C-alpha cells in the first residue's frame, strides 16, 4: 500500500515532531510511505476567506504531488476535510476525484482502513482530554456529535483506549469550537482568542494534564491561549501518543 504523507504547512513549520510521529506510525503498520518534497498546503486559507480563484494553483499542486498514491494521509482533520469536501477550485478530473476520495485524516485511516487493534509500544500514564477539531467532527465525522440524536461513537477514543495507562477525562463543553477557524484567528482576533481562552480554562478545569487532538492547528491556538492565561495544561498530538511518546 503506497501512502503519501501529507504534512500541512503549520505542522511542517511548527510541529515537525507530529509529522515524524505520523510517518513512523504508518511505517510501523507496514505502509510504504513517501513524502512528496514539493508539497506546500491544501489551499484552505484562501478558500476559507472566499478566495477560490486564488486557491486554484495550490490545489493543483496538491493533486500533482499526491495523485499517484493509493492513500494520502495527514495528521489534520481540517486540511483533510478541505481536500475531501471542499476541493472545488480545481477542475474535477479523475485525478482530482481520486485524490479527494483517498485522502484520510490519520485517526480515521488507522481506525477504518488499517483497522488497528493494538499499539503495543504505546503507554501514556496521564490524565488526558480529547479535542475534536470541528471539521474532523462535523465534516469527516470521526465521532458522534452532541447536537444530533445518533449512536455514540468516537474513533479517536477507540484508538486512545488501546494505550496503556491513559485515562480520558471530559470537559464541560466537549463539542464547542475553540475559535481557531483558520484565517478567523487573525481577522476576528478578539472573538477567536476569547473562545480559545474559554476552551483552555474548560480543559484545565477537567483536571487533564494533557490535551490531545488529531489536529495541530486547534491545539496551537489553544496552547497559545493556555500559556497566556498561565495554565499548566500540556498539548500533544494524538499521533505522538499512539506512536509511543511517554510525555
Amino acid at each position: 500500500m503506497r501512502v503519501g504523507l501529507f504534512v500541512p504547512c503549520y505542522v511542517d513549520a511548527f510541529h515537525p515532531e507530529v509529522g515524524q510521529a505520523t510517518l513512523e506510525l504508518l511505517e510501523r503498520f507496514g505502509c510504504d510511505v513517501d513524502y512528496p518534497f514539493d508539497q506546500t498546503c491544501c489551499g484552505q486559507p484562501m478558500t476559507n476567506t472566499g478566495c477560490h480563484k486564488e486557491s486554484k494553483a495550490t490545489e493543483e499542486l496538491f493533486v500533482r504531488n499526491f495523485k499517484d498514491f493509493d492513500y494520502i494521509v495527514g495528521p489534520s482533520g481540517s486540511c483533510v476535510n478541505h481536500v475531501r469536501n471542499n476541493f472545488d477550485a480545481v477542475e474535477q478530473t479523475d485525478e482530482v476525484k481520486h485524490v479527494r476520495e483517498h485522502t484520510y485524516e490519520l485517526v480515521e485511516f488507522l481506525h477504518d482502513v488499517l483497522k488497528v487493534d493494538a499499539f503495543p509500544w504505546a503507554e501514556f500514564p496521564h490524565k488526558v482530554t480529547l479535542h475534536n477539531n470541528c471539521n474532523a467532527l462535523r465534516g469527516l465525522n470521526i465521532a458522534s456529535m452532541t447536537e444530533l440524536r445518533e449512536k455514540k461513537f468516537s474513533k479517536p477514543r477507540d484508538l486512545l483506549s488501546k494505550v496503556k495507562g491513559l485515562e480520558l477525562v471530559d470537559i464541560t463543553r466537549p463539542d464547542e469550537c475553540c475559535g481557531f477557524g483558520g484565517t478567523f484567528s487573525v481577522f476576528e482576533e478578539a472573538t477567536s482568542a476569547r473562545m480559545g481562552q474559554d476552551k483552555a480554562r474548560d480543559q484545565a478545569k477537567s483536571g487533564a494534564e494533557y490535551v490531545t487532538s488529531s489536529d495541530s492547528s486547534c491545539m496551537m491556538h489553544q496552547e497559545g491561549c493556555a500559556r497566556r492565561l498561565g495554565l499548566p495544561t500540556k498539548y500533544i498530538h494524538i499521533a505522538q501518543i499512539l506512536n509511543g511518546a511517554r510525555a
Partner: protein
Amino acid sequence: MSIENQAAPTTPAGRTGDGAPANLTHGAGASVTMPPRGPEPQPRGAIIRGNHPIDQQEAARRFMAAPQHLAMHDQRLWDLRQKRDKQKDTIEEWEDLRQLASDIKTHTLTHLDTYLEQFERNAKANGVIVHWAKDADEHNRIAVDILKSKNAKRLIKSKSMLTEECGFREYAGDQGIDVVETDLGERIQQLDDEAPSHVVVPAVHKLRTDVAEVFARTLGSDPNDSDVSYLTEQQREHTRPLILTADAGMTGCNFAVAETGSVVVCTNEGNADLSANTTGLHIVSMGIEKIIPNLNSLAVFVRMLSRSALGSPITQYTSHFRGPRRGAEMHIIIVDNGRTDRLGLEKFWTSLKCIRCGACMNTCPVFRRSGGLSYGATYAGPIGLIIDPTFNRHKYSTLPFSSTMNGSCTNVCPVKINIHEQIADWRQVLAENHEIPAFKKSMMKAAGALLASPRLYRASLPMADSALRHIPRFMLYNRMNTWTRGREMPSVPKETFHQWFKRTRGKDGKKKS
C-alpha cells in the same frame, strides 16, 4: 416572528398564574451576582455608519470587555442549547422529524404560488381581508392605512421579526400611532429604543440591572431595585392600562396553514392572544415563507419549534387565528420584501426554510460571546449571516466572516439548513464581487501565489537566523499580526519537518542508518 417569550416557562422567579408576563430571568440574567461598585453598564451594539460595512468585531470586543454581560449571556444561551439537547434525546424520531420538517418546507417553497393562493382563498372564505405587500414600505403603508381608516391611535403588538425587518414601529410612530409591544422582552427593548438581540429572547443580552435602569428612565421605577418580581410588576402596572385601552392589535405569524386559511402564533406569555383579541381589529404581518400545506404538517413544526428554541416541549400557547371574531375585523398582510429574490438564489434559497427558532444562535460560540446587537442587522447569528447580505450586500458583507464555520448551527437547525456551508458560499460570492476589503484580497492573492510554488513557500519559512524566525510570512498576512493580542506565539522548532526528512532520509525517502 417566533415564540413571543422572554423566559422558559419553567423558570421559578417572577409572576405566573395570573396572566402576567412570566418573568425576567432569561432576559435579565438573575443568576449573576452584582459587584460592590454598582452595576456594569450594558455594552451597546454595532456602530451603524450609513451604508458602511458593519464592524462586528469592534462591537464584539466591547461586549467581551463587559465580563458580567459576557458570562451571563454565554451561560444563558448555552443552558438553552443544553435543554434543547435533552428534549432531542426524549424523541426517538428526532432526526426523522428534522428531515420531514425540511422536506415539507422544501416542498412548500417550491410550490409557493399554489399554496399562497390556496391560503388566500381560504382566509377570505373565513372572512379575513387579505393584502399583498411587495416590500417593507408597502407593508407599512397598508398597515397604517388600515389603522387610520379605523381611526386607531394605539396599537398593541406582539413580537414579530418581520415588523422589525420592515421598521414598522418607527414608521407607525412617525404617522402618529402609538405602538405598544406586548412581549415582555420586546417591550424592554422598545423602552430602551434598542432592536431585539435575539429572535426568541429579545433582551437576553441585558442583565436585570440593565432592565432596572431602563425602567427607571422610562417608567419611573426605582433604579436601585433590580428584583425580578418588582420589575415585572412595574412593567405590568404600566403596560396593562395601555393594552386595555388600545384601538387595534397586531401579531406576527409562525405558520400560515394553506388548507385552513388560518395563522398560528406560538407564545409563552399569551401576548399574541392579548394583541389579537383585546380590540376589534387584528392585523397579521406574514412573510410569504411562513406558508405550510396543512394541519398535519403543522404538527411536525409544533413538535420542533419550542424544543429547538428553549428546550421546552411546547410553547404555553399555540394560538390559531382563523377569522375575525363577531363584530371584529381581521387583516392579513402577506409580505415579500426580498423573499422571492432570495428564492432565486441557487445556493441560498433554502435559508427560507427558517422557522426562526433561534437554536443556531444559542449554539453559536461567536454569537454567545458577542451578543446579537454586534451584528448590526435585523437578523443576528448564523441565520443572520446568510440572510442579511440578501438585504444589503455591501453593508452586511463582513458578517459571513464573523464565524468559524464550525457547523454546530447546521446540526441544531430543525429544518436542516446547511448554514455553515452557506456562510462559506457567501464568502466566495462576496470575494468574487469585490465585497471583501482590498487588503484581504491582496493577501490571499499573495498567499495563493506563494503556496502554489514550493520554492517560494520554502523560502518564506522561518529559519533560525532569519528575521522571520517567529512565524512564516504567509501566516503573518503581511505583518498584520493580531495573533499575540490574546495568545502566545508557538515556539519555532530547530528545523522544519521538511528539513528533518531531507536530513534523515534524503530525497529518496529511505531511512539513513
